[in-house]
């Protein structure tokens, strides 16, 4: 037996030696490739030409809108065909850098963009934006996709991605449960909203069903809504965009976090929140097990089918009424830096925002507001549907110029490693509102190096 142990020891030693040797040969990865695309100016609008083109796409499973759009595009431009690969968003998030580097797709669904820009993996779209006139669209639509050199700060600079449409978040409510507590119109102020929550609690229903389990702390939705209800959405965006000196630990945000803690204390959330994932939340809401749910319009189409006429939507009211703010983000797609058919991909992205049929698909299939100029005609939507309500909310947020990115997108790791565990602790009573913000800010600074 000792001999066997020795042999095993020798094998381990060999592996370590090999590792050390490999280590001595130099580090993995390439030195950052020099940026070759500065978004060169174009003189004429690019097209897909007339010769057969096979576009490679890497899309997200479960979002039929992009498939519907590519089909329609091929119908209008018969020389363009698509080779599409689909994955879950989590898989895309893990694979994005390697896929963009090794097998660059012409069009790809993108996760957080800064890190991809830092490694020069995405095409700079400035040239296209100029020639297609994307610069003339409402600035807030593309703000989140603009970046300074090296990927930060976000919010200004060159354009590195585009949206197929942009989604809006807010509060969905169950009309039957709302009727039971005499709620006829959406609350206009936070005080009114608080009163409704208290009434629902008294009436014995769960006021808010919200997921907060696993690696995705869904309490970030109500928290950020409360932050915007008490404070300035621009300041929250500055933090998300990593502007120098930005902090999440501000007096108004502390008030917001305290308010959320008060809701938790009052028992307004489903008791299971810390063990509830997104799918379970959707199941509970659709089963009528909760009055309110903080979520986004990507569920509009789904709820219009499963709970037709039984669900309403409103943007979170601010503390004193007046302007409302909401998380609103483009359904982000980009072009790989080394894509073979970048011009055709850019043509497609412009077509999605400007073609009447494409805009109709963005709304009907995607359930969200199409991109494009502010005065572009809106496709007709069935009155009284949730889609109509979320589109109206989107328009109102556009008008109030109060769209925010999501606090979970500030850095690649901030959601899973900071917000989620901290919000779970807050729900369990193991963290104070102030401690939560301090802790997240601490992690943020260590990641961003502010």
């Amino acid at each position: 037996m000792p001999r066997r142990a020795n042999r095993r020891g020798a094998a381990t030693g060999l592996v370590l030696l090999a590792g050390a040797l490999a280590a001595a040969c130099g580090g993995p990865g390439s030195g950052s490739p020099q940026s070759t695309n500065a978004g060169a100016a174009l003189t004429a609008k690019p097209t897909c030409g007339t010769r057969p083109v096979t576009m490679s796409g890497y899309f997200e499973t479960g979002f039929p809108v992009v498939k519907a759009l590519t089909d329609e595009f091929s119908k209008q431009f018969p020389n363009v065909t698509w080779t599409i690969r689909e994955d879950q968003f989590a898989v895309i998030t893990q694979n994005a850098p390697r896929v963009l580097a090794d097998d660059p797709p012409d069009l790809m669904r993108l996760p957080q963009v800064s890190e991809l820009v830092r490694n020069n993996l995405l095409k700079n779209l400035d040239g296209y934006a100029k020639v297609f006139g994307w610069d003339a669209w409402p600035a807030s639509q593309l703000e989140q996709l603009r970046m300074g050199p090296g990927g930060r700060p976000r919010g200004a600079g060159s354009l590195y991605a585009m949206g197929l449409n942009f989604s809006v978040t807010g509060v969905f409510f169950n009309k039957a449960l709302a009727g039971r507590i005499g709620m006829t119109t959406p609350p206009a102020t936070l005080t009114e909203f608080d009163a409704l929550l208290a009434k629902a609690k008294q009436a014995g229903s769960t006021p808010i069903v919200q997921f907060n389990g696993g690696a995705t702390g869904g309490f970030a939705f109500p928290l950020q809504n409360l932050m915007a209800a008490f404070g300035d959405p621009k300041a929250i965006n500055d933090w998300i965009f990593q502007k120098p000196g930005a902090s999440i630990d501000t007096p108004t945000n502390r008030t917001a976090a305290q308010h959320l803690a008060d809701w938790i204390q009052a028992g307004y959330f489903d008791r299971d929140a810390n063990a509830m994932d997104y799918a379970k939340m959707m199941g509970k809401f659709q089963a009528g097990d909760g009055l309110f749910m903080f979520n986004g319009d990507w569920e509009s189409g789904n709820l219009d089918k499963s709970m037709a006429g039984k669900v309403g939507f409103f943007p979170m009211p601010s503390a004193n009424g007046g302007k409302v703010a909401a998380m609103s983000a483009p359904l982000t797609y980009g072009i790989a830096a080394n894509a073979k058919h970048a011009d055709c991909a850019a043509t497609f992205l412009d077509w999605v925002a400007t073609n009447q049929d494409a805009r109709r698909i963005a709304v009907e299939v995607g359930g969200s507001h199409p991109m494009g100029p502010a005065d572009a005609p809106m496709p007709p939507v069935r009155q009284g549907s949730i889609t109509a309500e979320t589109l109206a909310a989107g328009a109102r947020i556009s008008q109030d110029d109060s769209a925010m990115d999501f606090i979970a997108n500030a850095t690649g790791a901030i959601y899973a490693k900071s917000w989620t565990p901290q919000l779970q602790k807050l729900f369990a009573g193991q963290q104070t509102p102030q401690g939560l913000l301090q802790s997240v800010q601490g992690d943020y600074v260590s990641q961003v190096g502010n």
Partner: protein
Amino acid sequence: MPVGRTTLDPAVELAGSQPERVRATRRVRRRDQWWTAWLFVAPAVVAYAVFVLLPLARTVQYSFYEWDGIGASPWVGFDNYGRVFTDPELSGTILNAVKLIVFFSGIPVLLGLAIASTIRRIATSRLAVAARVVLFVPQVIPLVAAGIAWSWLLSSTGLVNQLLSAIGLDGVTRAWLGDFATALPAVGVIGAWVLLGLCTLLLLAGMSKIDPALYEAARIDGAGPFREFFSITVPSLRQEIGVCVTVTVIAALASFDIIYIVTQGGPGNTTMVPGLEIYYQAFVQRQVGVASALAVVLVVLVLGCVLPIQRLTREESS
């Protein structure tokens, strides 16, 4: 002459031309055999080298760099290892894995022993067959499906809480997987449930090899069932117990799938284990260096736990 032929002096041996030729052909044949042997082993060796040894060496290599998986990678020496041991978020995962050993190894092995000896006593009845099937089912069900089923059972309105309420224990009901105090034990129970069947079956197989005469002799000497169990069954099963402990300790330390499905490390990192943390570090935080360092530490930890167990159970049995 015969005397001369049997001499051990190599000079004498070499002097003869006949044996020399024989030896040469034998050497050629042996070399041929050597090549054929390698030819047969080659596919396995290549696969092992490419898919096990190379990644292992690469992991060791990456652990000395700070790398996001794509761009440039500065050499940082042992900094990543320093972080593994000083960052409570990383070192805490190792502690959680060690705690899981109690559930993943302790319960299945001890309970498995008890169940196996019970089944052995009723070996011929249908109940024994049914028990064996029921216990082994968790091994057959995909872990993902089992994880989802368990997350329903353990939710605040799930079967577990319904049963507790039914017997008047409303006070202890809770969202077992969402509670800071109970999440890790709850995950441990799921792991124990998965591994119990495997251990029971292994131990049962081992028991069938024990000579019945031993039990007979013990009974004649006046030993009761407990004495039989501790003096005959357990010592005879040393090797099987060794295998069970090895497999389950590895399952505990390298756990990933169950936890990824039911809690994803939450709430608040209470169920975060090294396997999951490595995944998050590498693919979410893009800290390939730190992830690799933690992976190397995990490998060393597993070897450090498993090799002594192997030695203990083998040596004493021989």
